[in-house]
């Protein structure tokens, strides 16, 4: 059972469920312990600010259960945008500690003065991804492009875990996989057929 974690962040669990439904997959939006315990696939959505995201997750009382599911049971989890950033240790966006499942940090886009005029923040719109290694997450896609909307990105991930990078002023990590932990900076739920393919791959291959 696929559970989209609802932690009252300004996330978009309904968009994800809509797309999963469109490709024939049932999912539940839930924040209850019972549902999450039963989940064999987890999705952590999220848009918004890092600290309020962590606070909402803490207030939902799910962190110890999620730690258990992800780190002990190795349940596949897909983090989307802020959801992915919460997997890291910390973010320049705030002072809260992240979940720390990935030894990495979330940092703000940092352009030199010459680049600053050309590259606006947030990075918002459709961008391509460069595959750094072949992973089933990206199978059945030709020249995929995805929708991004973010001012921060992850940094310092072990190169063997980096799956794609994208270019915006400089090369940044747009997705990673470490065992059962998968993070994408873009929004598959808003990326037409490419997003559908990615979500399908996540559910079928992990």
């Amino acid at each position, binding site marked *: 059972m696929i559970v989209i974690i609802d932690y009252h962040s300004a996330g978009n669990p309904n968009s994800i469920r809509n797309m999963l439904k469109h490709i024939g997959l049932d999912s539940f939006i839930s924040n209850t312990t019972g549902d999450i315990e039963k989940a064999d696939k987890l999705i952590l959505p999220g848009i918004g600010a890092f600290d309020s995201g962590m606070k909402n997750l803490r207030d939902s009382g799910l962190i110890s259960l999620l730690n258990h599911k992800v780190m002990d049971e190795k349940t596949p989890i897909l983090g989307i945008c802020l959801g992915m950033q919460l997997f890291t240790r910390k973010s320049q966006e705030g002072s809260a500690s992240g979940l720390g499942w990935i030894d990495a940090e979330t940092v703000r886009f940092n352009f030199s003065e010459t680049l600053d005029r050309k590259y606006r923040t947030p990075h918002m719109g*459709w961008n391509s991804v460069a595959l750094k290694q072949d992973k089933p997450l990206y199978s059945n896609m030709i020249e995929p492009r995805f929708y991004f909307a973010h001012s921060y990105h992850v940094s310092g991930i072990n190169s063997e875990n980096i799956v794609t990078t994208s270019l915006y002023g400089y090369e940044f990590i747009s997705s990673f996989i470490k065992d059962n932990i998968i993070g994408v900076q873009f929004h598959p739920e808003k990326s037409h057929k490419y997003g559908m393919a990615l979500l399908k791959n996540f559910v079928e291959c992990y």
Partner: protein
Amino acid sequence: MLKARVIPSLMLKGNRLVKTVKYDNDLYIGDPLNAIRIFNEKEVDELIILDILASTESKGPPIKLIREIASECFMPLCYGGGIRSIEDISEILNAGVEKVAINTHAIENPQFVKMAAEAFGSQSIVISLDVKINKKGRYEVFTRRGKQPTGLDTIDWVILMQEMGAGEIILNAIDRDGTLQGYDIDLIRAVTSAVSIPVIASGGAGNLSHLVEAIDYGGASAVAVGSMFVLHGKHRAVLISYPSPQELGVIGI
């Protein structure tokens, strides 16, 4: 490489989709859900939906319709119209929308934008503004569908909105709306030079070269297109269209 976005911009009036000329003379286009399905099939970059009644008649956002629209949209969606509270924004985002456009209420209470950006993140908070050249020959911000001057200078306003945490700007040139005569490039350039957040140019698109001008000469990160994507020919017949990736590729978008 980030591509400049080409965004159909649709106007809602109640449950009807309309198109105006200079914010007047509403022409009925059709059922919004039907139009959105077609745009979805055409894999458009994004959609902007502005409810022109919600604010002027002090009605709140039509949540049920927004939810139906969002369930058909597998692309980013920005909704604007009648947003006056943090609860409004929360409801709209929970309905499956990525971004909200705030216009009138930002003018009434600029601090509201700061609260909204802190609560939901800048990437979800868009400022929409309606601009016209006033009698002194300056770009002034108007409200009430372009009828009421606010005394706000456009450049001062967009800088303030950026400071308040807005993540993006929809820049509407009232006198270009529905005219198909091209964007107001001077206006776009003035705004894109003043702020570092993305600017969506709106008002006047009539052909693909106009889009290129707004991006290349105006510095816009995205272009909103109304009439050109919903009407066809000199008799303004309703026909929904969107350029293919190949057509956009040829002109460098």
